Every structure is written in C-alpha cells, then in structure tokens.
C-alpha cells in the first residue's frame, strides 16, 4: 500500500505525493513512518524531514507544527517547510549571523533569548541541509 504524504504550511501546500517512507522530528525524537502506521497525532520539533521514494531521497527543513498519521496517509502541518534544494545558503548564513548577534547583545542586556535561539536553530538546520545537498547533489540511496 502506498503512503500518501502531504506537507502543508499556513501559506502553501509544500509537498503532496505518494512515498515509501518518511522520517521526521516527532515529539519524542526521530520518528519513522511506513505504510500501516497506527493513527497518531503529534507535535513536531525543529529538524529534518526525509522522504524516501524508490531510490531517491528528498529532504525538508521543517520547523514546529503538528503531525497526523493515518495508515495510508501522513499529514505534516509545519510552521515552515523548505525543500533542501530550495534553501538559499547565503540567506541562511545571514540569518545565522543575525541570530548570533542578537544572542550576544541580548545576553548582556538580559533580554528574552528564546526567539533568537529558535532563529539560530532554524538557520543552522537550513545551513546543514543546504550544505549537504550542495556536496552530494540529489541524493541516491544504495
């Protein structure tokens, strides 16, 4: 039985196709989903979502949100979802510098750092995905 995967964000439908399996950052850590998975509703962390289909693999950087799993369908409702091949490495590095600066300044002023920390985490995630994609090109399995 094929597994239908949909990735939606508040602003768009980022992905919709049948896949073999999907791996994503669930509430209790990495979570792999194959067809016939038990119905599950979970919150999502920040991390990498990997899709396997045939011998190709695609990766998304996803940030927060929710996950709904049914035996034949997985729906990812993320805040943002960026396909690895679409990530702008320079922009991500700029975001990283900005977040680090904000952390530094905020640390001395005793401000709330959670927003800056989250921004840094996202930037690092995007950089990791974009760089790996750059090194390896579209990934093939096996």
């Amino acid at each position: 039985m094929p597994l239908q995967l949909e990735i939606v964000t508040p602003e768009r439908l980022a992905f919709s196709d049948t896949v073999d399996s999907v791996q994503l950052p669930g509430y209790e850590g990495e979570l792999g989903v194959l067809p016939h998975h038990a119905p599950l509703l979970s919150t999502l962390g920040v991390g990498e979502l990997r899709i396997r289909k045939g011998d190709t693999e695609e990766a998304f950087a996803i940030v927060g949100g929710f996950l709904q799993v049914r035996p034949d369908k997985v729906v990812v409702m993320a805040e943002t979802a960026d396909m690895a091949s679409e990530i702008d490495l320079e922009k991500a590095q700029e975001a990283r510098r900005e977040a680090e600066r904000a952390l530094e300044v905020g640390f001395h002023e005793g401000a709330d750092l959670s927003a800056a920390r989250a921004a840094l985490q996202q930037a690092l995630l995007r950089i990791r995905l974009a760089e790996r994609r750059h090194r390896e090109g579209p990934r093939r399995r096996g």
Partner: protein
Amino acid sequence: MASQRDIRRRITAARNIKQITRAMQFVAASKLRRAQESTLAARPYADKIDEVLADIAAVLGAEDHPLLAQRTEGKRLIVLITSDRGLAGPLNTNTIRFTARVITEHQGDLAVVTVGRKGRDAMRRARVPIEAHFAGFGDRPTFADVLPLARLLTDDFLSGDYAQIELVYSRFISTLSQKPVLDDLLPITPSADTDQGIPGRQFLFEPQPAAVLEQLLPRYVATRLYQAVLEAKASEESSRMVAMKNATENAEELIEDLTLAYNKVRQANITREMIEIASGARAR
C-alpha cells in the same frame, strides 16, 4: 454654450482620468490574482487544522482549555477587517454599514479591534471604543503578519474581559460579488469529528491530548485570522478592479459625448463664420 477650447480642455481631462483608472484596473487585476492564489494556497492547512482540532475535541471537552470555554458574562469584541486604501467601490462602505448594524442591535458592552484604516476612521467617527488598531497587512499578507493580532486577541479572551470575539470581513464570493460576514472566533467551537474512516478516539497522542491542544488552539486562531485577512484582500482588489473598470467606461462615454459636443460647436462656428463672410460680401 461652452466654447471650443473649454470642451477641448474637458476632453483632455477625461482622457487623463481614463488612463489612470485603466492603470488602476490592471494593477488591481494582477493583485487580485495574487490574492486569490494565496487564499487557495492557505486552504489545505486550514482544512487540516480544522480536522485535527475535531479529532482532539472528540477526546476532550470544552473544560479542557480556556479558549474553548463558553462564558455568559463579559463584553463582546468585534474585529473589523477593512482596507487601508479607498477607491475600492462600495466594499468598505458595505462592510462598515454591516458592522454598524451589528453594533446597534447589540445590547451591552462592546469594543472593536480594527484592521485597516477605513474601518478605524469609521469606528472613530461613530465613537465606538477601539481596543486596538492594526494597519492593513500590505499587498501580500503573510501568516507572520497576523500573529501579533492573534496573540492580542487570545490574551484578551483569556484575561476574561471578553465573553465573545467575532470577526467582520468581506468574504470573497466572486469577482463581482463580495459579502460582509460575521464569524465567531473565540471561544473556539470545534467542528464535529467527521474524519474519513478514523474517529478521533482511535488516535494516539504525543504528548497528551491536552498538551497538543494547548499548542494547536493558538495556531487555529491565527489560521482563522489569516484566512479572513486573505479573503478581505481578495475582496478589496476585486471590488477595486470592478470600480475602476466602470470608471474607465464612464470616462470613455464622457469623452464620446464631449467629442460630439465639440464637433457641433466647431461646425456651428464654421457655419457662423461663413454666414458672416457671405453677408459681408453682399453688403459691399
């Protein structure tokens, strides 16, 4: 009777206006296309979040989260979404008149939060207490734009001041038709659990249902607001497009009429001059 030069001046003016309204019509048309695309693109997420909420509501009750709590005491808050800019046909007038009716029919305390300058101006004139104002969200509203508004409204509701928060905006039905509507926002009433095949209680929850709900509800509020803002945007641009199309056509009609009048005057002048010359020649 107007002189030739007067009429010519009016023709030039009408032509200039026509050029402007025509340009505005095309700009509105392209913005409308974008707004419609955004509205459609946002729909899958909104539908999904509805569905997940219904799943959770099947296992939890209204007492499990304060945003679900039905209260009898407290004020009513209306979020009025209008445009920042005018020249959008009857759109803002209709929305504001609709709101005014809702307000006058209501007994008891009431306040508004306005999004868009037109609504704020009208509410100020009507001396309705404005709890907060947000400038419109530009030509391309993003989800992040509505988050501060969503936070303000949920905080307001949680503080207990308001028993009911509603949205008034113009729903986009078609290019020719937009309708002001009143939607409930808070407290949240989850739709019935109609999940295809899998009822909510068969789901495993990670973390506990209440914890998922805690994260989901603020998202849900923001999603509803985002959709309303997008609908209002699409309505604004389509209404402006139609208004400008009409204005362009009126200008064309006016130019035609003026050209006819101009030719008549010109002909009359020529005839008069010929008579003068002819009679002058005979007099000699």
